[in-house]
């Protein structure tokens, strides 16, 4: 039964990347144009070309929608990439920062840090937010990795991760509930996951940190290609296992920490996007997977944020509500498929 792999040429990769690029552009524009005030493409081009236009329109676009859209784009990509790295590390296609409780760990430390800073009367900037989230995601991640050495089955690991997630979320809720400061209203929204409330500084930091991390992941493409065949293979062709492990964990942590710091926990993107990409591209080659995961995660989050803002307008849905609707079935499909391939 020598079934030939559907051979994907460089051309078909190119076409798929073009499609992802076009989708990104379309949803990016749609996110900027739609909302409580709909803005036509013509006034958008006017604005870009600097032909004056309405000041209110300008402020809506530049101060509210643009930072939010930029955040959704980069953070979506970051989530997908973080999930891809975790899946690679654990040899488990249903691993992801949300499912394994890593996002919730970051959420908890960010909530604690926010409380401490608010009580001290200091405003947290983007950098301290990221640091707090990074500490939390590292704590959760190290715990998950510690468990993965002891828990034999992948299913048990996922369940353990979810439990870590519940514990962290419960602690976060407790903190949020007892915080009576007026400022804390934002905290409640954030702890449910949302791209709202981004300012210019947030967007700028995101647009710098995420591309840096992305470059770091791209530099790991070669060792990952050997790693994914199995650890012993990787060692036998000369991979420095310790260094690669360390790099994967740190980069995955930074990527998911960034997302949580600014948007709170966003569910399922980290699992769904890499799975869809594997199906679409029919390869596991890291040089294709890494950029494709990033782009599809970005498209996915742009799309979901658009729905979150518009479906029940003027009420806004939590972003995780929307991502779960589209992401969870994909995860289920991945589980079933994995089982089917085992039976073969």
């Amino acid at each position, binding site marked *: 039964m*020598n079934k030939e792999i559907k051979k994907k040429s460089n051309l078909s990769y190119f076409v798929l990347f073009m499609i992802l690029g076009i989708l990104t552009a379309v949803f990016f524009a749609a996110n900027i144009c739609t909302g409580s005030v709909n803005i036509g493409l013509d006034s958008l081009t006017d604005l870009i070309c600097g032909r004056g236009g309405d000041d209110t329109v300008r402020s809506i676009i530049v101060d509210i929608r643009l930072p939010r859209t930029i955040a959704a784009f980069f953070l979506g990509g970051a989530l997908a990439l973080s999930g891809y790295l975790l899946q690679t590390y654990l040899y488990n296609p249903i691993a992801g920062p949300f499912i394994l409780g890593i996002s919730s760990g970051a959420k908890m430390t960010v909530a604690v840090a926010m409380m401490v800073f608010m009580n001290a009367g200091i405003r947290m900037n983007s950098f301290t937010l990221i640091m707090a989230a990074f500490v939390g995601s590292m704590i959760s991640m190290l715990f998950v990795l510690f468990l993965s050495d002891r828990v034999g089955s992948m299913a048990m690991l996922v369940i353990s991760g979810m439990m870590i997630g519940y514990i962290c979320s419960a602690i976060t809720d407790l903190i949020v509930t007892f915080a009576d400061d007026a400022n804390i209203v934002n905290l409640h929204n954030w702890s449910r996951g949302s791209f709202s409330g981004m300012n210019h500084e947030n967007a700028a930091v995101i647009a710098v940190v995420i591309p840096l991390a992305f470059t770091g992941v791209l530099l790991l493409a*070669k060792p990952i*290609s050997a790693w994914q065949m199995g650890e012993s*293979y990787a060692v*036998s062709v000369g991979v420095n296992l310790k260094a690669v492990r360390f790099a994967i964990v740190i980069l995955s942590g930074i990527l998911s920490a960034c997302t949580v710091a600014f948007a709170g926990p966003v569910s399922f993107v980290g699992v769904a996007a890499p799975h869809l990409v594997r199906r679409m591209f029919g390869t596991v080659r890291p040089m294709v997977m890494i950029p494709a995961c990033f782009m599809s995660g970005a498209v996915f989050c742009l799309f979901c944020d658009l729905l979150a803002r518009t479906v029940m307008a003027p009420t806004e849905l939590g972003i995780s509500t929307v991502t779960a609707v589209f992401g969870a079935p994909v995860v289920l499909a991945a589980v079933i498929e994995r089982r089917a391939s085992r039976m*073969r």
Partner: protein
Amino acid sequence: MVKDTVLKVYGLDAGYDGKLVVSGIDFQLAEGEILSLIGPNGAGKSTILKTISAQLDKKSGSVSFKGREVSLMERKERAREIAVVLTGGIKTGMLSCREVVESGRYPYTGILGKLSDTDRQIVDDAMRLAGADIYAESDIDRISDGQRQRVLLACAIAQEPKLILLDEPTSFLDIKGKYEFMDALVRLCKERKMSAIMSIHELELAGKVSDRILCIRDNKADRYGTPDEILKNDYIAELFGLDDELMKKFRD
């Protein structure tokens, strides 16, 4: 003509963490030679192979490859000299056999892992030599065990090593698969002047292809010699602890 010695092992003690598995291993391997390790399960054959490839730290003694201690060689350099054929599946699907073999070029490519035309040529040659070229584009998950073993051999060949280590390479193969695999290995050692060390349970096969055989028993090297010296019925019975009572049931 005196052949160059590729590998010298003496006084080697090997094991995991605190536990010593085998001790006092001595042997030498010349260019183009095949050495078989035989002995009961759990005697420490795999441990020896893992220690020679420096996947495990040795406890004491020396493993010297062309005069250099293996554990002190740089990773990339070691991968260019010593390749390992692992038994057992590859952990990811959606990978063509060619892509698996291409990973053997790892120690030769740059930071982005891009293959040159020379690399591709070497990959093609390796697949042909291992008899794996016919299913180069098949998914590694969807070929038979015998075919997969030859793909993994091709992957090791693509590393262009001087020494190949194989851990029970034929254990899960049917008879035809066993012979095809050994045929490829012998051809390889002749044509490329590569040496090989393998652990193996098929004694008859080991006798036919090996230049020397090292017997491991009770965590020590027991005998070391040519197949003719080693493969005698009395000794094999002793090595594997077969007693008369057990064997009587299977005679006649």
